[in-house]
């Protein structure tokens, strides 16, 4: 294995691997991905993997998510079948107060070209007959869907490797030194140098930032998900809170807990989640849960992606975000443009780390 690279990406999850793949489309070779464990062992491998636009707020963030969702069909053509399915997304609501909220949401989105429809009870039940008949209505967006996250990251990796990208896994980075014109990246398995360095450490971004004296304000937010036995296909849409996978399993969950890096599951949340499931889709009552898992979301302090250059350190980049699955095609594309061309086709200034004023730890 060489020790010198044009670009090193730290983190081989959905974000890091997408950047590696997109970079390799243009520059074959000279790219190394370092992962402290193995891709999919963190957040990217423990997600419901909705490709989700609707009810993202504010509207400029929804717009950004939409552009990424639009890239999925093309991406699957390029890297192979990732079981992407644009099912359309439904968010049921059960009271009139939520209908008001939904109508406001639809109105705001109209101006940026995202169509959100507010369905009546009858319309919602016609689209998704399995919904609880007590539903008051639902918001609906045709652009939403879901993907198989395991296949997604695997296909990114395979396509990247085919283009000459090297992966060094089970290889934790322990130190980063900035030298004139290059970085020295010290890892458990050796020291590498590179011109460009991309920090794509997901939930561990804060720790990576410390190595270059930068605060990357990413926190951890745990989510617990239930998985049922495979059921025959019966859900037509990606419903906020649950979806049915290709093999028939239903994944259920919409919990948020601040538990640091603790990936345990708890019966409290599992029972609440089970409640949500039978409340939304009563026919799930008879389905058996075979597993509960939890994933730690990488949650930026203000909820929005942190993308772009790190000012003051030449050729140092960061890509850290929540909703990595939805955003990975776009982030990979834009980070590649930024690294190779110095500019991006869609502005990402809004996502700059400079928006946080306590950036330096020194």
């Amino acid at each position, binding site marked *: 294995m060489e020790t010198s690279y044009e670009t090193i990406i730290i983190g081989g999850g959905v974000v890091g691997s997408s950047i590696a793949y997109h970079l390799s489309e243009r520059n074959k070779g000279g790219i190394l991905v370092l992962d402290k464990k193995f891709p999919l062992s963190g957040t990217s491998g423990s997600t419901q993997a909705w490709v989700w636009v609707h009810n993202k707020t504010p509207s400029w963030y929804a717009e950004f998510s939409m552009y990424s969702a639009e890239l999925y069909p093309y991406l699957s053509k390029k890297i192979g079948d990732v079981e992407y399915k644009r099912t359309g997304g439904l968010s049921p609501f059960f009271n009139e107060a939520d209908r008001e909220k939904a109508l406001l949401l639809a109105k705001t989105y109209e101006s940026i070209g995202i169509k959100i429809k507010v369905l009546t009870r009858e319309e919602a039940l016609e689209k998704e007959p399995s919904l609880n008949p007590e539903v008051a209505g639902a918001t609906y967006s045709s652009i939403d869907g879901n993907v198989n996250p395991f296949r997604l990251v695997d296909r990114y990796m395979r396509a990247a490797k085919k283009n000459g990208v090297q992966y060094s896994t089970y290889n934790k980075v322990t130190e980063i030194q900035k030298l004139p014109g290059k970085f020295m990246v010290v890892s458990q398995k050796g020291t590498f140098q590179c011109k460009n360095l991309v920090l794509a450490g997901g939930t561990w971004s804060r720790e990576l930032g410390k190595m270059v004296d930068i605060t990357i304000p990413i926190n951890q937010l745990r989510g617990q998900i239930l998985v049922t036995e495979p059921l025959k296909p019966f859900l037509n849409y990606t419903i906020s809170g649950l979806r049915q996978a290709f093999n028939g399993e239903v994944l259920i969950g919409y919990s948020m807990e601040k538990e640091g890096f603790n990936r345990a599951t708890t019966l409290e949340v599992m029972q609440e989640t089970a409640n949500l499931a039978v*409340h939304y889709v009563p026919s799930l009552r008879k389905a058996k849960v075979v597993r509960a898992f939890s994933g730690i979301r990488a949650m930026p302090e203000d909820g929005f992606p942190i993308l772009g250059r790190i000012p003051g350190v030449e050729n140092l980049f960061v890509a850290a975000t929540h909703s990595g699955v939805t955003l990975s095609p776009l982030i990979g594309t834009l980070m590649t443009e930024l690294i190779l061309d110095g500019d991006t086709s869609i502005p990402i200034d809004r996502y700059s780390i400079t928006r946080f004023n306590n950036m330096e730890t020194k």
Partner: protein
Amino acid sequence: MDKSTIICRCEEISLEEIEKVISNGARTFDDIKRLTRCGMGPCQSKICNCLVAAAINEKTGTPFHEIPLPRMRMPISPIKLDTLATNSTTFSSVKSVLDEVELEDGKVR
């Protein structure tokens, strides 16, 4: 052993598929599981666990005590959603998506 031998009977994953991802760098049961679905079926790796450990050991020479256990999860054995549910309608840490839509001056932020 014949490469076509099924290792995970729930998901019908063969030794060949498992050896392939090991040669791509997978080192633990969970790495292999995410890339092949081995161990994701109804038995939740209870049957294939030792067979996969043997495959890792065989292919990489990693001693058994360095091959970690698959991550085990609740429920300890499968349970009906109806039985698990509490019938309470107040969710504290589980939300609905519209809860996340923030309003400001009567408008969506």
